[in-house]
């Protein structure tokens, strides 16, 4: 009935984890010059048509319907099957089904203009009715869409109405800067398919989805693959590839071999496998930011950690570059993180105290706090290789400043259960990770004192007020200033120690091109598969 979130997929498939993360689509990162991505981009030649692309996915899709999709596999498939209204990359909108989005001067009304002559895969016209229907179904409590909360502002729903066939109007109950962030998650579903379905989530029609993206549904064999065919009526132009196949490959070692054997053409690989795959010379490897932060959180329910100086001392005792080298093999696959906001998030401040390693300062702070012989319990998920390496590093490094660390590797479910307990005193520090998207307001759920995912249990009314003010501030400069203050507070109070902005690595057979135009995208790998072609 429900979709697992990206968060949960990340728990199982990736190295991060536990804490929370939104389903918000985040903006792709520009690849640094000289990086493998840049070299891949430089290869783009004249597009040719034909051929297929086989992508590895680690699980079967869940409900193939974008108002329910939350796991990595389903989101990846939906990205090709359904078209979004628009996407936001590096703060700039790229319009897909929509032609424009205009806010009224009071920011209480948004007008969305659709492109003309949009069609669904079955040939029916895609109009404002479909957009209105999608939003109404998202808001319908009986449909259980996880997107519903994004369209409830101050306990009141956003109102949506059709103006004409290509125009939709949204009325907000109160000003919120987060509305575009909510709308960017919307991939319309066809009204003519679902209008008579009482429970869309359980509808058989999700098994033969009709979308508006560059590829249309062909077949799904459970446990094996989902096959999509080219949609010639795609508004963005006929895709180059004839088909895209998502092949279920659960075991990473076996799927790496299948990649080398040519049975899979594209997959995400671990940093540990990068050299092995890259050295074959058969693949273009693209490390790219997924907008993900790996962090360490201090549990302020614990008396010893209530003193700010102790937390700061721990931060000074650690070296983020060394942590990255220990857990992600090299700095090529993660950047040291100074802020709790990831680089793709709006208003990420660049001048936050990065807590450069200073062991003497750490010792002084500990002495000043009267915490000379501190013993701490560090919890992490036992199946997470990166966290295991981080834990061993932290244990060793904190020993140098006189802190004894007891490691508590836990099963992911047990870890989550303990971490979500507001009175948790079972461990003192822990590791986590999140992908929150471009809209900083989404981070609120991890830091405001009353929120469930406030793992640090830090409580400060002024700090909460800053988040609430920033959410409704429509002046860009003022909003940036508010978020800068928020980032500074977290750094000064050291409730969360940001470790690294980690990268994902795509490996794709060298015969494919058009990768730059396809644009790397967090979670789903590529934003627009219609641009990929065989050389």
């Amino acid at each position, binding site marked *: 009935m429900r979709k697992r979130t990206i968060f949960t997929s990340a728990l199982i498939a990736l190295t991060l984890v536990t804490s929370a993360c939104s389903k918000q689509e985040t903006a792709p990162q520009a690849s640094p010059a000289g990086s493998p991505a840049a070299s891949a981009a430089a290869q783009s030649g004249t597009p040719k048509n034909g051929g297929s692309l086989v992508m590895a996915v680690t699980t079967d899709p869940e409900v193939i319907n974008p108002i329910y999709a939350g796991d990595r596999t389903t989101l990846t498939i939906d990205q090709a099957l359904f078209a979004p209204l628009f996407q936001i990359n590096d703060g700039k909108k790229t319009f897909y089904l929509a032609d424009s989005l205009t806010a009224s001067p009071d920011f209480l009304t948004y007008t969305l203009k659709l492109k003309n002559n949009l069609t669904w895969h079955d040939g029916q016209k895609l109009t404002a009715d479909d957009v209105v229907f999608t939003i109404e179904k998202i808001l319908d409590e009986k449909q259980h869409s996880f997107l519903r909360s994004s369209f409830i502002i101050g306990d009141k729903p956003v109102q949506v109405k059709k103006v004409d066939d290509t125009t939709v109007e949204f009325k907000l109950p109160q000003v919120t800067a987060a509305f575009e962030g909510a709308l960017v998650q919307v991939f319309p579903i066809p009204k003519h398919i679902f209008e008579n379905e009482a429970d869309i989530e359980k509808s058989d029609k999700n098994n033969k989805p009709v979308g508006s993206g560059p590829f249309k549904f062909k077949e799904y064999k459970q446990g094996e693959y989902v096959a999509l065919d080219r949609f010639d009526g795609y508004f963005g132009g006929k895709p180059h590839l004839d088909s895209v196949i998502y092949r279920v490959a659960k075991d990473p070692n076996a799927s790496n071999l299948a990649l080398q*054997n040519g049975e899979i053409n594209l997959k995400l690989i671990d940093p540990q496998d990068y050299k092995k795959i890259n050295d074959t010379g058969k693949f273009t490897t693209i490390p790219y930011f997924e907008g993900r932060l790996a962090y360490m959180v201090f549990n302020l329910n614990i008396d010893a950690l209530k003193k700010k100086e102790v937390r700061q001392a721990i931060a000074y005792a650690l070296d983020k570059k060394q942590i990255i080298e220990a857990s992600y093999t090299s700095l090529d696959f993660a950047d040291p993180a100074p802020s709790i906001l990831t680089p793709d998030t709006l208003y990420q401040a660049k001048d936050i105290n990065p807590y450069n390693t200073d062991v003497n300062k750490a010792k002084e702070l500990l002495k000043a706090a009267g915490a000379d012989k501190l013993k701490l319990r560090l919890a992490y998920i036992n199946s997470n290789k990166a966290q295991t390496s981080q834990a061993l590093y932290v244990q060793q490094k904190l020993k140098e400043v006189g802190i004894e660390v007891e490691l508590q590797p836990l099963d992911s479910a047990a870890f989550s259960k303990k971490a979500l307990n507001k009175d948790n005193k079972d461990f003192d520090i822990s590791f986590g990770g999140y992908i929150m998207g471009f809209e900083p307001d989404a981070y609120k759920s991890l830091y405001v004192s009353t929120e469930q995912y406030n793992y640090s249990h830090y409580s400060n009314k002024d700090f909460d007020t800053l988040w609430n003010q920033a959410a409704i501030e429509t002046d860009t400069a003022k909003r940036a200033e508010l978020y800068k203050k928020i980032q500074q507070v977290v750094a000064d109070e050291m409730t969360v120690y940001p470790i690294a902005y980690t990268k994902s690595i795509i490996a794709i057979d060298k015969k494919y091109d058009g990768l730059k135009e396809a644009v790397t995208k967090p979670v789903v790998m590529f934003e627009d598969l219609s641009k990929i072609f065989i050389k």
Partner: protein
Amino acid sequence: MYQVIGRRLLQSIPMLLFISIVCFALIKFAPGDPVQSFVTPNMKPEDVERMRHSLGLDQPNYVQYFLWLKHLLTGDFGYSLVNNRPVLEQIVTRLPATVGLMGASLVIAVILAIPLGMIAALNRNRFVDKLLNLISYVGISIPTFWLSILLIYVFAVQLHLLPSMGMRTIGQDSFLDIVKHAVLPCIVLSFSFLSVYIRYVRSNTIGQLKEDYVQIQYAFGSSKLRILFRHVMKNVLLPIITLLGMSFGDLITGAIITETVFSWPGLGSLGVTAAFGFDYPIIMGITMFSSLMLIVGNLLADILYSVVDPRIKV
């Protein structure tokens, strides 16, 4: 005979009931909440509670169990919490893949184990026996996933003789193509079964060869082969039948690792995904099927016992 079978099947009902209670309790006592794996930080508490209610997870555990049982008695295995598809449909769709793979592996293992085990027994403590012993020990100790990866590397990546994953080539639906895909996982599973069965056949054959009836046959001038295949084999088969009966449950869940490594679309991989997602309707469905198969397997083993050795009654 039919009465006995009917009685045995009736006796299995309380057993299945007991298994379902234990399985349900284990799922519920395990740390983790299905709803927590569905929610995002941005969701409002009332939406989360609505979701919990819609899944029936706000009810006491015993109520949830009885509701599940009530539906099961009408043939409704419920819906997956993860993908909303009917549990029964998913099990039935994947059942042939697992049963086919496991069935073929078991048959191959038995067909090879009987002559090899007998050869080992006849050549006790000689080179052939020691070689088969070594193979057997290797087969028992070798990790399945390691052997799988090794075979994929050699036969798929290096020699390009066989596919490395899946059950079919995309777009093809021929039996031969499925067989080609099944070769490597079948080798892995057969090797694992074979290693155990050879040991059983060998030790049983050694025991039987000491029996009076064998010595009498020798005295009558019967050939070694005739004694082995006409007289000894029947008795050697008895423990194999027991093992096979016990393996019936494995037909459903015995290939979890192999299915995962080879991306074989069977029940094992479905079970793993369900376990990670706290998808209890799927876990319960697979457990019930597996338990039923085990019970049926044991019943069949008992019937076969009486066929092979008429002195034994069902």
